[in-house]
């Protein structure tokens, strides 16, 4: 008897993607991959470069692990995952070194260190080894994009406050030349910007989610069909 494989729903495909960017944001929510977050973000263009590298490695590793998820024996899954992730990480390092030597100089030690980036092992183990190929790929893209977005944001803030430039373009003409504070380029500034941005990000996201929930509640209340939400007006007005 052959089992019929379930069809992938639209939600299966898009929900890992949207979750990866906001709800499961690797930097501000899951707090994974903090080593490159603090070291690379001295300039915004570094952030984009690193983020896209991690995205590539994550998508490839997720895809391969998802394909092989029934074949890899459970006892050696961690070494197998590390082997797969290390392969793609080395490929990215070699490609960046050959075609983008400036980025390679700036990222330095952290390109080969993508293999021990907590994000990769965590997502591969918790998502890709249990789900099918296409949701895993979407999860990889989502988390990768979320990571890129967050480290670019930290990079923009640090670069603006610390060196007075935006993606390498100095904007001393708009603001006064007194602004660049070297503190933000130093490691101490990195920690501080990360901490404060985490607070800001979480507050903003919580507020938006709450207001969306409230709006949904109000909408459902006004329709008052099969409303299970307990607002007194509905109970007295509507039917059951």
């Amino acid at each position, binding site marked *: 008897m052959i089992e019929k494989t379930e069809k992938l729903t639209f939600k299966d495909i898009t929900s890992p993607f949207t979750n990866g960017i906001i709800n499961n944001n690797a930097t501000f929510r899951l707090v994974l991959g903090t080593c490159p977050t603090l070291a690379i973000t001295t300039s915004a263009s570094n952030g984009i470069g690193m983020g896209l590298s991690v995205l590539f490695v994550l998508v490839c590793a997720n895809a391969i692990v998802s394909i092989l998820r029934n074949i890899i*024996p459970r006892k050696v899954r961690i070494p197998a995952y590390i082997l797969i992730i290390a*392969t793609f990480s080395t490929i990215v390092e070699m*490609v960046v070194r*050959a075609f983008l030597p400036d980025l390679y*100089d700036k990222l330095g030690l952290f390109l080969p260190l993508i293999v021990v980036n907590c994000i990769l092992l965590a997502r591969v183990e918790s998502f890709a080894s249990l789900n099918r190929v296409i949701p895993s790929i979407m999860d990889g893209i989502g988390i990768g994009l979320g990571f890129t977005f967050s480290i670019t944001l930290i990079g923009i803030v640090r670069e603006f406050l610390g060196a007075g430039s935006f993606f390498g373009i100095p904007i001393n003409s708009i603001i006064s030349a007194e602004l660049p504070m070297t503190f933000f*380029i*130093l490691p101490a500034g990195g920690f501080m910007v990360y901490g404060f941005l985490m607070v800001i990000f979480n507050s903003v996201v919580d507020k938006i989610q709450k207001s969306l929930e409230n709006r949904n509640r109000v909408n459902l209340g006004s329709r008052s069909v099969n409303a299970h939400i307990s607002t007194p007006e509905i109970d007295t007005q509507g039917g059951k």
Partner: protein
Amino acid sequence: MVDLLNEKKENLVEETNNFEPMKDNGSLKRHFKGKKINESLKIIIVLGLIAMVASIMLAVVNFYTKIDENQQILDEIGSLYSSEISTTVDVSSISNYLGTEIKAYYIADDGANIIVAKANKGDKVCYNATGITIIVIIKEGLIEKVVSFSHSETPGLGERALREEYLNQYEGINTDLIFIPEGDFISTPEFNYFNPSVITGATYSSNGVSLAVKAAVKAYRSRGN
């Protein structure tokens, strides 16, 4: 469908009825050992296959993305300097001055000496880093240009010592004015020598640049110039 299920149930019942506790301990051990060997074999095969595929993929990518540092240096020099390169000096004969390294030494058609020197931050071992590589062009005893080739300094901090505005100060300096200490690195030389300015906050990176220039000039002098 129901028949199929019933058949399966019958098979299971049959199997469980046939199951007898193994009286012979030897065969039990052998049974489990066989299972264990099977498992270990599977583990080894799967890991081995993954490793092999990984190595093949990496070898292929490596073949296509291999970089030749000499070629990169030549390309950079080509974009900087118009004259063609006529001779290549053997750098292995040049001794490493205070931990620096001369990566390449070319002489162009119009007599300019193009030296690629790599140095750490002054001589400060505490500041373990991957080094600064600069290209120094010396012509007829004068330093014509100093350009940064590769570095991994933090932008905004150490990188300020490798910007064009800072490296400009070496242009036109006579190589006789570059003080080359015999022993340890000295940042402020004796009187009458060229005293390079140092960027506040990037002291050791500036000292690294200074050391690399000294190494280049030393190599230049060692050729009898």
